[in-house]
């Protein structure tokens, strides 16, 4: 060993061993890596090496079960694949051990080579006094690293939303509810307009624009029906739609519920039962069968759904059905059953809760906080029970709530509930909801009149702001008014009337010989009328008259006004909710 020449020769040998071992290890590692890729594929999926071929052959065989040749090919390929798979598996195992041995040889040879070369010459690069200097540099580096680290972490952490809380955390499931819930929040006007948030759609106008209308449908054959879902509890209310959810309510004498339905599948995602201690103290109200216990349509703003029932219970739930709040507005006293649908202005739920006679002093209009159910304002109404749904309009920057009852038509300021103007014109049990177009509101009731009022007045405007009023014809008792700009339409006992919106002159009338309860709607400029038998009559309207275009039967009675979503029509029959649409996509 001491002989330098032997030592040097040995060193060369060991060096070569190290090189060979190193190359061997590198090659083997590469092979193992490749083998692993073959076993697991680059996409990390787990499969036999050429499985698509096998699966394809099997499918071929399913189509032609008698092909003996194909069977043979499958069997051969199958065996090959299995053998290949397990061969590769065992190669991985054995290769691992070999690599380990090779690595060991490599390292040992390297160590030996170093040992044979002898100890290294110490290089004294640092001087003792360097230590303080290097310490200072290192300290700066450590400090700088810490600062950079803090900044990076803060930036990274700060930019992240807690996405697991994106779930509608309403209902106080979380100790720290999403902060937006209790803050004043409401959708932008264009968001309202894009949804179907309340009775008769955005603004309660009864006007819908639907892209890709289906050519037609037939509830009996299932043609054009995307899905059909049985609604457990009955109700005359219309569905409301927000994005991919549909909400509606149902009730019987002793059961009430709100339903959340998946617009894609029609599955009832949740059903929120409604019951308040106060509500259960009273006997169920007496209602007419046609009205039922869940006549008023609910409202939604995409975060909460609020529904009112005939017994005076009003509840707010999250879009996942979790309870937000529940209230009882006092025992109902209503000849037919409470039927005024809800409206919404900003984050306020507008409730017209008219009860009893005018002298009872029970009627009022309230605005409830949609998030908490608290009363923001409440204004007494000098009227008896009514069935008109409130409508929120805006005229020259002033939002107004339009209501009608016997005898007063009253507009309120939704901000504080103060009366803006009123007209004394109505009589009887007022039920049809108003229409509004360009500064003029239209009201009607059977046995009373059809009246157009300019909405820019203040105070009692009976003598000053009535544009026109007529009382010579029959007027609707349930179906709401509809105004398309030039004309106002009424549906009265199977007849359709058109009046000039500016003058009030009757333009034409059209006999349909059907019974109607649902309110007419204007869809893409065409008038839709839904008969009680479930037929949807679609027609063009112009100055000349009504030109029927199509009739689509549903096969189930309809009492509720339809709702619309993107490319979809939702019809609520007596028992089912139908989604109608064209081709998916």
């Amino acid at each position, binding site marked *: 060993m001491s002989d330098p020449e032997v030592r040097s020769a040995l060193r060369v040998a060991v060096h070569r061993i190290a090189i060979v071992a190193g190359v061997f290890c590198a090659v083997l590692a590469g092979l193992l890596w490749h083998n692993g890729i073959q076993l697991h594929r680059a*996409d990390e999926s787990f499969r*036999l090496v050429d499985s698509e071929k096998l699966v394809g052959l099997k499918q071929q065989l399913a189509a032609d079960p008698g092909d003996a040749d194909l069977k043979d090919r499958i069997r051969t390929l199958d065996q090959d694949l299995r053998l290949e798979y397990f061969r590769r598996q065992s190669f991985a195992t054995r290769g691992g051990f070999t690599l380990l041995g090779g690595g060991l040889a490599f390292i040992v040879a390297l160590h030996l080579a170093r040992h044979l070369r002898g100890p290294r010459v110490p290089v004294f690069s640092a001087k003792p006094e360097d230590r303080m200097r290097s310490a200072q540099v290192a300290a700066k580096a450590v400090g700088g690293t810490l600062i950079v680290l803090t900044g990076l972490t803060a930036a990274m952490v700060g930019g992240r939303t807690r996405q697991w809380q994106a779930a509608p955390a309403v209902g106080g499931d979380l100790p720290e509810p999403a902060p937006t819930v209790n803050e004043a929040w409401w959708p932008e006007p264009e968001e309202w307009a894009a949804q179907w948030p309340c009775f008769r759609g955005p603004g309660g106008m009864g006007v819908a624009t639907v892209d890709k209308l289906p050519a037609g449908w037939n509830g009996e054959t299932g043609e054009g029906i995307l899905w059909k879902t049985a609604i457990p509890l009955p109700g005359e209310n219309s569905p409301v739609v927000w994005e991919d959810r549909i909400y509606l309510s149902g009730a019987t004498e002793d059961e009430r519920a709100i339903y959340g339905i998946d617009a894609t599948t029609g599955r009832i995602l949740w059903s929120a039962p409604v019951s308040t201690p106060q509500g259960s103290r009273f006997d169920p109200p007496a209602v007419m069968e046609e009205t039922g216990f869940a006549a008023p349509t609910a409202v939604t703003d995409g975060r909460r759904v609020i529904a009112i029932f005939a017994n005076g219970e009003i509840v707010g739930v999250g879009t996942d059905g979790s309870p937000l709040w529940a209230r009882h507005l006092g025992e109902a006293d209503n000849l037919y059953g409470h039927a005024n649908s809800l409206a919404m202005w900003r984050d306020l739920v507008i409730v017209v809760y008219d009860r009893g006679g005018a002298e009872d002093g029970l009627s009022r209009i309230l605005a409830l906080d949609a998030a908490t159910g608290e009363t923001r304002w409440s204004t007494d109404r000098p009227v008896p029970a009514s069935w008109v749904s409130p409508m929120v309009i805006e005229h020259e920057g002033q939002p107004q709530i339009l209501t009608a009852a016997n005898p007063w038509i009253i507009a309120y300021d939704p901000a504080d509930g103060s009366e803006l103007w009123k007209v004394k014109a109505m009589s009887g049990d007022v039920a049809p909801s108003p229409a509004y177009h360009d500064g003029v509101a239209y009201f009607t009731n059977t046995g009373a009149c059809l009246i157009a009022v300019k909405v820019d007045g203040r105070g009692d405007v009976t003598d000053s702001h009535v544009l026109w009023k007529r009382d010579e014809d029959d007027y609707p008792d349930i179906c709401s008014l509809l105004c398309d700009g030039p004309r106002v339409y009424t549906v009265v006992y199977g007849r359709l009337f058109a009046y000039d919106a500016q003058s009030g002159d009757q333009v034409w009338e059209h006999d349909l010989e059907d019974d109607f309860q649902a309110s007419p709607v204007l869809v893409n400029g065409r008038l839709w009328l839904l008969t009680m038998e479930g037929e949807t009559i679609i027609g063009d309207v112009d100055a000349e008259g009504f030109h029927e275009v199509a009739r689509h039967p549903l096969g189930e009675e309809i009492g509720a006004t339809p709702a619309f979503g993107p490319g979809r029509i939702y019809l609520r029959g007596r028992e089912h909710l139908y989604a109608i649409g064209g081709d998916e996509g």
Partner: protein
Amino acid sequence: MAEQRSEPDSGRRRLLRATLWGGGLAGLGALGGIGVKRLTQDPPAPKRPPLGPEFTYDVSRFQTSDPGLIQWRELSRFPSGLERPRNLCTTPGGHILVCGDDGIRRFDADGRELGFSPIQGRVHAVAVLPDESLLAGLPDQVQVIAPDGKVRAVWELEDVLPTSIAVADSRIFLADAHARVIRVLDLEGRPLQTIGQRDPDKGIEGFVVPSPYFCVRAAPDGLLRIANPGKHTIEAWTTDGDLELAWGRASFAIDGFCGCCNPVSFALLPDGGYVTGEKGLPRVKTYDECGAFTGIVAGTESFPEYVQATQAGTPEAASAGIYVVVDAAGRVLILDAIGGTVRIMVRKEDGDG
């Protein structure tokens, strides 16, 4: 000497050092980058190395049925109200009885609940005696419940799992999935005979019942119809225990019975045809009196909850059936044990009624 030796070294050394540092720092940077990317990914993408096609059990091609074959439509459905519904039957009075782990619930023909008889234990089968009493089949016993809801008698039967009960000619036919025979009892619960016992001399192979689904019905023609799920057939037997005929074939195709043991339930239509219920791929189909496939009542696609549960492969799914009965009006009632609802199906052509 020190200078001499370190001189040739320094160039190589510097290169090596530079390479190593460069490589090391680049590696660290890459690692850090990956880390930062992972941390800031919002939301963290679910990473699932998928199994290759040959490692995946795929029956999706059987899960949709030809709409042209669907001859029935759903009139309505109602929840069974039971935690774990297991069977149903109709009464001569037109009521619907659904049994399960809590007891028996009674509904009218439209699905309105009329009453509830709580029973301790798993009620696998329910039937009505001529005197309007109910028979509830539980493991190793049959309870007789009088019309007033009181338990009139309990017939203890050793090693019996009654999964279906038929009553005809003052006799009770109990499908015993445990012994895989039909036990014949009189109206007082006394055993009279057994049908379908394996008997090589008579050429009777016995019923193949691999799981607790074994259905018996009494037909108007005086014969019994018994499902032999392991053989994928429905068989006609005399009440004396002779096999008359059998039909049915195993296939995932729509005209066959799928899986290892189907049909789990069947019923007789007024025209002599059959309605069959299958588990696994939940589907309800009709066959004519000769066993020729005639149409679909409800295809697999109409049982989404059931399909979801079987996809997840949970034990609930492995022991949940699709049960069918036909009521006096010829409507088909389907109990989906996972969805927990009873559907009332009517033929499409007489739908308006």
